[in-house]
Each structure stands twice: as C-alpha cells, then as structure tokens.
C-alpha cells in the first residue's frame, strides 16, 4: 500500500531577525507545494529531548531560484519558550525536521470573495499566516472589492514587523498599537472603525481576546468572518484530540461539541466556534 511522507529533513536557506525575538526562517522543501494560506507546519526542535513539533503557520511558499531543488517555505515566529528558542538558534544550512502542510486554511472560493471588501486583521504573531493569504488574494485579478490589512501591536517595540511585506504586495496596510506609540491608538477593530474601513468579509488571526472581540463585532454586524485558532498540539494530524475548540453545533467527526483545531481548523468560520 502506498504511503506518504509528510515529515522530512529540510535545510534552512535563510534566517532573518525581524524584531527582538522574532525570526523568519526559510526552508528548502518539496512538502508544501500545495500549501494554502492558513495551513501550518510542525517544526521539530533540533535537540532530541524535545519530541513534539511546534505548530507554526506557513508565512509564504515560493518557487526556488533556477538550479535549486524544492521550494522555499517560510515561517515567522516569536521565541515563546524553550522549543522556539532552540529553533531560533539554528543557522542557515542547518537541517530541521518539518511536517506539513497541515490543517485547513482560509476559504477563498469565488462565491465568498465576489464583490466584497476584504479586511485582514492580524494581532501580534497572527500576521504571518495573513501575509500568505494577502499574497494569494492580491494575485487574484477577479476580486473587484478592496483588500486592507490592519496589524495590531501592543506598542512600537516589535518594529511593526511584516508591515512592509504587506505593503510590498501592494495591499493597503494600517497599523494599530494599544498605547498609540505608532499608527492608530487602540486595537484592530478600533482602527477599522476610526479609519472608516468597510468590511464585507473578515479574516483574523491573533490572540484569543482579539478573536473574541472579532466574533462580537462580526456577529453584531452580520459580517462573515474566518479566524485562525491556536491550541497546544501533540500529533498535529487529528489523532490525539489534544487541540480542540468548543463548537456551536455537534462536530460531525467527534460527535460532541468539540472540533480539532489541527484538522478541522486552524481556520474556522467564526459562527461555528465558541470563542
């Protein structure tokens, strides 16, 4: 019987410090040619004592330059603990095991996008998965509506990392900071309102309080919204049931009010999840 390999040794082709403790790593890999925005990979820390892969969103997939093997997959992550610290200590040409692409990303079929003004809301480390989405949306010539991204940061210490990457794609990019030290004062929803930006469709990735606020906001205004969720994971492929989120309806797989973030998600229709 034919079996697939989704966990492979992959060479780091680039490493970049974007802001204090925030890195971009690119890998040479043939794993993610079919990857969609919102999907993630597991990155295995190099020291064998840490066994579980760390879930990290795919921030971009590009084809390699001529003569190079495989594709380039990049991730953007913050040092959040010992595993991400180990990963961040790796250098160009080091080899790590990565596994993916995993989960279901942001839906973007024609019917959903047609004629809608789209707003992407990224809080902190939510920006990377939206970057890949923004790139794919910008490539779609068939979208008549506007695309705006609003990136929220606590303050200016993170140097509004990735904002220029969105601008380079040609997308209207706003910045909001909680303390007003940069861009608009307030959260991403405040920024949307105060700038008079209209949303017919929202994609959001960020910390849970932000996503809960997006749920209230989009529900009150009946705006369709899709959110990318996080939870501690072990297997990443739907087996351990470690990564669940409460659902509004009984989940067709689990037959209880829980869905697996790694498999049914990480991106959910905001109506379907209790957040």
């Amino acid at each position: 019987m034919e079996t697939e390999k989704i966990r492979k040794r992959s060479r780091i082709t680039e490493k970049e410090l974007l802001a204090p403790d925030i890195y971009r790593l690119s890998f040479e890999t043939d794993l993610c040619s079919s990857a969609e925005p919102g999907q993630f990979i597991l990155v295995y820390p190099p020291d064998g004592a840490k066994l579980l892969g760390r879930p990290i969103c795919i921030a971009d997939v590009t084809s390699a330059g001529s003569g190079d093997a495989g594709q380039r997959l990049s991730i953007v992550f913050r040092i959040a603990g010992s595993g991400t610290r180990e990963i961040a200590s790796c250098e160009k040409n080091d080899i790590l095991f990565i596994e993916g692409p995993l989960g279901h990303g942001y839906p973007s079929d024609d019917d959903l996008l047609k004629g809608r003004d789209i707003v992407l809301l990224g809080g902190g480390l939510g920006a990377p998965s939206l970057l890949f989405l923004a790139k794919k949306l910008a490539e779609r010539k068939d979208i008549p509506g506007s695309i705006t991204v609003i990136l929220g940061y606590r303050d200016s210490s993170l140097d509004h990392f990735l904002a220029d990457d969105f601008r380079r794609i040609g997308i209207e990019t706003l910045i909001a900071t909680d303390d007003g030290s940069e861009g608009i004062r307030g959260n991403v929803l405040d920024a949307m309102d105060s700038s008079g930006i209209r949303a017919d469709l929202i994609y959001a990735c960020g910390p849970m309080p932000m996503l809960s606020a997006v749920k209230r906001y989009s529900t009150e205004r009946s705006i369709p919204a899709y959110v990318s969720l996080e939870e501690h994971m072990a297997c990443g492929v739907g087996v351990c049931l470690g990564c669940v989120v409460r659902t509004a309806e009984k989940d067709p797989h689990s037959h209880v009010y829980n869905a697996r973030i790694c498999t049914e998600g990480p991106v959910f229709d905001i109506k379907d999840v209790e957040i």
Partner: protein
Amino acid sequence: MSTQESRPDLGIDFAGHHFRNPVTVASGTFGSGLEYSRFVDLNTLGAVTTKGVSDKPWEGNPTPRVTETPSGMMNAIGLQNPGVDVFIERDLKFLAGYDVPVIVNVCGHSVEEYEAVVERLADDDRVEMLEINVSCPNVKQGAIQFGTDPGMLTEVTGKCRSKAKNKPVIMKLTPNVTSIAEMAKAAEQGGADGISLINTFTAMKIDIYRRRFVLGNRTGGLSGPAIHPIAVRMVYEASHAVKIPVIGMGGIATAEDAIEMMMAGAVMVAVGMVNFTKPDAVTDIINGMEKYLTDTKTHDIRSIIGLL
C-alpha cells in the same frame, strides 16, 4: 538458503490468537487508524488498538489537554470519544477494509458502562480482542480508579469477561499503584486473558510565569521515552507474577526499546506517544525488529520473550 527462508519469523500468539508480528499501537495514540493510514500501511501492523470507547459520547476535558515534558508529554484528553454506536458504524467499518486485527479499548465510569460496551462488541467479527482501560475515573465510587483497588479490578474483570463471550479480555493496568504484581494477579484472578501495561503516570506541570497549572485538568498522564525504563521494570514484574500474556508499552520509540520490552516479558508491544513525533514510527520499529533478529541470527521472535 534463499533470502525468503532466512527471514526471521515475527509471528506471535496471544491469548490463543495469532498475530503476524508483536507490534500494535497504544490506545489513544493512533485514533482508529484513519489519519495515520496515509503514512503507515495498516496491513503491516500486528494489530491496531483503537482509542478508548464508551457507551455514550464523552466530551473530554477542558484545554490545554497536552503539553510537552522532557523526553515525553502529558495529556489530559479526558477520553473524548464519539460513543460505541458511531465507533461501530464508522471506525470498525473503516478498519474492516484492512487486513489487520483490531483490539478495541473500552472505557467507562461504572461497571455497567464497561459491560454495556463489551456486550455491544462481543459478537462483532471485526473485533479481535478487547482491552479494558481500568484507569478511568470511577464516578460512582468517588474519584478513585478501578485499576488501583485489587478487589474492584478483579470484580470489573470478571464482569467484562462474562459479557465478552469468546473475545479475549485484556485488562490495561495503571502504573499508579504500589505493587503492579498484585494488580496483575487481581486481573488474572478475575479471569483476564491477558494484561497490558503501562498506562500513563499521573503528573502535574505548573507555568511559573502565569502562576497556574499548564493543563486545563490540572493533572495529566505522563508518557513517552521518559517513562520507558519504569515501564520495562513494571512489565518485568507483572509478567513474572502471572501466567497470562502481557502487552508491554510505555515510551517505546525504537526497535531496541520494543525488543527490550519483550525480553522483560511482553508477548506483544504497543507504540504510543512516538507516533505523534514521527507519523511512520511504527513502520520503522517493525522493520528494525526484523533487522535485529536477522543480525543476531534469531529465527523466531518468540525465543526472546521473557528471556530475563
């Protein structure tokens, strides 16, 4: 001699049933095989052991449910499962498409709940053996587990045995006891056809910066390579205390670990947490065991069982 003839025999017999090799997967670490069937040819496994199933659907525990620990992990899934009806309709149907024996892991809050599930599966041809997880919290008797009181273990074993008809009943033991040999004997006395061990160790992890428990359930079960040497010791003690066969598990990550477990007394072995860290780990382990036998000129794997 042709290479065909010189291939070692990995077949074993457990409770009167023959298995092509001794390697199964630990309950809860392989679902019902659906997800991992993309990465592992299920027909190469000795058996698939499925996630614990109860008579009604269980919601499980609040998140976080999993966290990493040095060379291992803790989980407090809370035995979330869709209930035996869905399991029969969907999971057993899926597995029937493969040529692999199925060991069904059963959980319950009360003796009656265990009995109800066993009864539903006793006549199902797609089920090879039943594994009873006696580490579930026992609600009726308070918060203790069936698996930590020898008298209750003997009782629940007997009740399951009498409902299981001709299916072998394997009692899955928890390591959270003072004497694993005593628990093994209690299961044997209740009529168990085999025992499996170890389940996870009850453990705790605190996030010192947030000043709270890491897991939603406060405690969780520790598994993975960190517990392997303890598992080997317990399999040794349990297998020497009883005549019924043992499925050994706990931190098996390599073929060497599996061979070690068999030398300690296990007839079959189960691969658990390492499935999460390497989706095709179980394939590497089976191939590695065959290579070990070839390299050490061991023709029959049965000759290493309980060697010490």
